[in-house]
């Protein structure tokens, strides 16, 4: 089986599992958690394109998520624009902003880039808080309409699950395609040796801005979906903490792995819920687990999984040869 066919099969299997999951779940609580995992996966994949492939850090990605959510929210609540059109505009404007700030910001490297994106994130967070007339400020923006297709309204957990996950699966598929193309290779080349990539004719400066723009576009669409499914947004969800959480998802899951981003998003979304039984100790355990994963699986959970799979496979083969 060629590598390509295997990858198509893996994706189909993953998509089938995702789409079938709600059939085996009772109650809306889990469905709700899975909706969040979907949104976070989309965000982690978007950030991974920038961080895992091109090797450029962003500590302000929650800002694009928030920008998408607020543009969608404001357009639909104050100007009665159709939610789908609002989503398109949210994506377009956020991508436009990323493109404009990308040129100066992405000239920076390493810690300086981290500081610049951090600053951008904080500026946006303050903007969400202070432009009370538009965003409702700290008390939030409510009454955002749900998305709908004809008479199908996405206003319950079941419908939202499929809405979010169809988008997430789409984003994952496109990102996988991208990562295995000349663009994906050029991004990884920039990551490994920017100077050699440039000598090979890769325009590193432009490509970094392009992928930053795509990443912002996908994050903003995730933000718009979030706004229309939650119907209420407030600045808390789009602050510095969440930017760091997104970076953590990407690193814990595995830099440069799309499925890794799903794992990272799933773990970081579920862990706080699962650890709730430990009451006050939850935050300690949470930190401890993150430290252990980064120490013992530097390639992220996805590399840990593939090591485990190889280990099991070798054991099975060993048994067969013994018999």
């Amino acid at each position, binding site marked *: 089986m060629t590598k390509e066919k295997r990858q198509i099969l893996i994706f189909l299997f993953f998509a089938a599992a995702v789409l079938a999951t709600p059939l085996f779940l009772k109650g809306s609580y889990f469905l709700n958690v899975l909706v969040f995992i979907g949104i976070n996966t989309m965000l982690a994949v978007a950030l991974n394109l920038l961080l895992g492939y091109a090797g450029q850090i962003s500590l302000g990605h929650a800002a694009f998520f928030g920008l998408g959510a607020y543009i969608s929210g404001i357009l639909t609540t104050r100007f009665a624009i159709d939610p789908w059109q609002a989503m398109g505009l949210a994506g377009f404007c956020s991508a436009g902003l990323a493109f404009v700030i990308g040129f100066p910001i992405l000239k920076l490297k390493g810690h300086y880039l981290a500081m610049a994106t951090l600053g951008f994130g904080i500026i946006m967070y303050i903007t969400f808080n202070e432009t009370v007339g538009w965003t409702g400020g700290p008390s939030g923006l409510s009454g955002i309409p749900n998305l709908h297709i004809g008479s199908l309204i996405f206003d319950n957990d079941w419908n939202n699950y499929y809405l979010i996950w169809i988008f997430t699966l789409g984003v994952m598929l*496109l*990102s996988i*395609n*991208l990562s295995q*193309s*000349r*663009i*994906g*290779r*050029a991004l*990884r*080349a920039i*990551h*490994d*040796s920017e*100077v*050699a*990539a*440039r*000598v*090979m*004719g*890769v*325009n*590193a400066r432009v490509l970094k801005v*392009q*992928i930053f723009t*795509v990443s912002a576009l996908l994050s903003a669409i995730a933000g718009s979906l979030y706004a229309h499914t939650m119907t209420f947004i407030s600045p808390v969800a789009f602050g510095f903490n969440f930017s760091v959480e997104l970076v953590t998802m990407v690193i814990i899951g595995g830099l*440069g792995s799309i499925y890794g981003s799903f794992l990272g998003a799933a773990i970081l979304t579920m862990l706080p819920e699962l650890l709730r039984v430990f009451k006050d100790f939850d935050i300690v355990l949470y930190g401890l687990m993150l430290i252990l994963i980064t120490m013992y699986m530097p390639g992220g959970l996805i590399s840990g999984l593939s090591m485990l799979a190889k280990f099991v496979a070798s054991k099975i083969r060993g048994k067969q040869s013994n018999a």
Partner: protein
Amino acid sequence: MLRLDGINKIFGGLTALEDVSLSVTKGSITGIIGPNGAGKTTLFNIVTGLYTQTSGQVYLGEKNISLLAAEALASLGLVRTFQNIELFGQMTVLENVMVGLHTKSKSGIFSCAFKLPGQIREEKYIKEKALHWLEFTGLAELADQTAGSLPFGKGRLLEISRALAVEPQIILMDEPAAGLNSRETIELAGLIRRIKELGITVVLVEHDMELVMDICESIIVLNLGRKLAEGTPREIQENQAVIAAYLGES
């Protein structure tokens, strides 16, 4: 083919290159030699657009490339290798060479993400060409290995394969024999001759005199940022100024 006209490069108060003019004949193998600190690598960095010269002009054929950045030169047919190998360490050997074909393909983010038919065709072409160059340098069997895990000598060959994938008119090699053992150096000499047979002009900076004298048709000697001499290997070997520079006489 390649012509430098009065190149000066000053770093702060230090003059690294002073009024260096030279020209490289199309289809030749030209060696640039000189003691450490002579400015050889600086010269390469200027030609390949990684540094900007303080003054002077660089021409590739008839085209003035003095102010072009590195990424613009690959599509004009100028490519280089590095003294300390610069591979894409986390990518496979094949993928490294595929990056060399970047300028031979043009699918954008959109057509790559949606796998449009043109992109699929292009991808097939890139892969075939990359494999061809790996066969040319004898690395085809290592295609699926991670580049970072290659032994030094193979890494060198991979860097050359990747540069060839650009389908250059001229290839600049910065100390290609550094770190190679004698058998690998002999193989390298053979490879450089085969590259020349493809019609590609080769310029190399090299410390291994045996290799330089063996394969180069013309040699340029730099010393302390200036051009000291140029000529055939025999002329250079007999040049008193060159001997003095190398032996440290004055």
